[in-house]
């Protein structure tokens, strides 16, 4: 693990680590740094998941109202058709937003593997400033190219503020 003082340095270091062929690379920062996820070739399917959830919500919302009002509990209200679809739009819309929004948050938490009470990076005492004003880059031991001494000297070569070994 190497420590840096600014988002630009972190981005540059990530690019170099990536260029050196390391694949199990992760960057930690107190604020989102644009470009790092792209450097790591990371993409997310979350928007698709949320879209599907929204469509499910719409189908559920309308279906529920249709089933209740036209099939299970038909009532003649001032001669309106049992399937008074324009009246069903507001609830359909709210269900869409509800399903999409709740799914987005649950999917975010699950795909980030949170809540996670233990993670090795927290074993480095210095890491407590990763949520404050410092930036960290890790190369994990599961990396196919991993070799402790080589990784250490590679990280030193990035001119970091410090290099730390992360205990499992």
């Amino acid at each position, binding site marked *: 693990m190497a420590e840096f*003082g*600014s988002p*630009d*340095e972190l981005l540059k270091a*990530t690019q170099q680590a990536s260029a050196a062929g390391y694949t199990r690379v*992760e*960057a*930690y*920062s*107190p*604020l*989102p*740094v*644009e470009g*790092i*996820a792209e450097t*790591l070739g*990371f993409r*997310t399917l*979350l*928007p698709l998941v949320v879209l599907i959830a929204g469509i499910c919500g719409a189908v559920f919302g309308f279906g*529920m*109202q249709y089933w*209740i*009002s036209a099939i299970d*509990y038909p*009532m003649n*209200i001032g001669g*309106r058709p049992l399937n*008074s679809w324009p*009246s*069903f739009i*507001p*609830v359909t*819309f*709210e*269900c869409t*937003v*509800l399903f*999409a*929004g*709740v799914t*987005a*948050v649950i*999917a*975010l*938490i699950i795909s*980030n593997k*949170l*809540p*996670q*009470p*233990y*993670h090795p990076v927290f074993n480095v005492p210095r890491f*407590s*400033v*990763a*949520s*404050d*004003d410092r930036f960290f880059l890790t190369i994990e031991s599961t990396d196919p190219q991993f070799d402790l001494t080589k990784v250490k000297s590679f990280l030193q070569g990035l001119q970091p503020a410090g290099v730390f070994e992360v205990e499992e």
Partner: protein
Amino acid sequence: MHTDERLINVSSAEPLVGPGYSYAKVTETVAAPILTVPTPRGWFITFGVAFLLVMVFLAAVTYLFMRGVGIWGVNIPIGWGFAIVNFVWWIGIGHAGTLISAILLLLHQHWRNAINRFAEAMTLFAVACAGMFPILHLGRPWVFYWLFPVPNTMGVWPQFRSPLIWDVFAVSTYATISFLYWYVGLIPDLASMRDKAKSVLVRRIYGILAMGWRGASRHWHRYETVYLLLAGLATPLVVSVHSVVSFDFSVGIVPGWHSTIFPPYFVAGAIYSGFAMVLTLAIPVRKMYHLETLITKRHLDYMAKVMLATGLIVAYGYLMESFYAWYSGNPYERFMMMNRQFGPYGFVYWLLILCNIALPQLLWIPKVRANTLYLFVISIIVNIGMWLERFVIVVTSLHRDFLPSSWGMYYPTIWDWATFLGTIGVFLALMFLFVRLLPMISIFEIRQLLPVPGRNGSKAH
């Protein structure tokens, strides 16, 4: 959210973040009121008053549960009374929070970063207060879950052609999404608090709430995606919620309610009152905690301008209501408007015009917008004005409708007032607890406004 060069071009005299801020200084400043600085005396006074009002609320509600809604001034024809006036008022206040956090995010209005957390909390607590009124008004509040389509042995279902059930869905969805949005926004800051806290217990609590957030780049990427998606979802949601609230009125055929201008004019009114409430709360809190360099005069100036603009939309709404009452040629509508302006409740109408339209015009003057005391007073006046507006809409429309034989008057009782003041206490108590316990300014979003260390030339991002 993203690097935005336009920020540099904002030529306003005062920067969005005061001078001398670094990433660490922001964390320090925001965390200090919670972790290190002794709680200011003003906090105890305000919270004490709010807590007393919470007790008033509990007493009023207990008595209501014992005796039923007969203790209020509601009657036939005025069946809605304070309960619905307060419901609409509170939910409207909540809307500014969503506007600030979601709509201004989508519009790249970076100045929102200093006030969005605060405004979102306000939304949450305002919606909680709002939600209580329809339930208390039910008559049998303990069976409130019948509002939802719950399968039951009676074999009955809600009536989905009624705006009242739309309201149930709109408000409950709004409360849920507002909570999630607020919580998601808090996660990185909770991690900062966890790492800042000295005491083990405090660290544990924030640690549990932060769920082990460690700022990994892949997490940030997903996080920003979801944050934007939620903003995109919340934007039409907030418009739909107050539109649905206005449908409660405009779908009915009562003169003074049955009008197509209601949805846009309600939404504008909601934002108007919400910004007023943000100012009412932010001005004392920023002084109490010395946050003048994070919530700057420029922020207050922008909020005042939004108030001015939405206030003018509301004024247009009042004008059109009067115009259509006359132009429609409908005798009931014409009578309603004459009665509203010159009938027994006429003084409320003119008070409303004074509070909502006449006095806020002072905001055109830059000196007024730059003076926190004037702004504070005007924001309270607008809060009162918006409450009067809902009173005028609910009461003056109902009390004299088509048949003179069914006319009546509505006089709020002490229990009406106690319940209303009680919810103000609940709101303020929750708000001040929030300010004391959670970072009231979004730390990670303020960091994004700061100059990047080691990068020259670019002042703001």
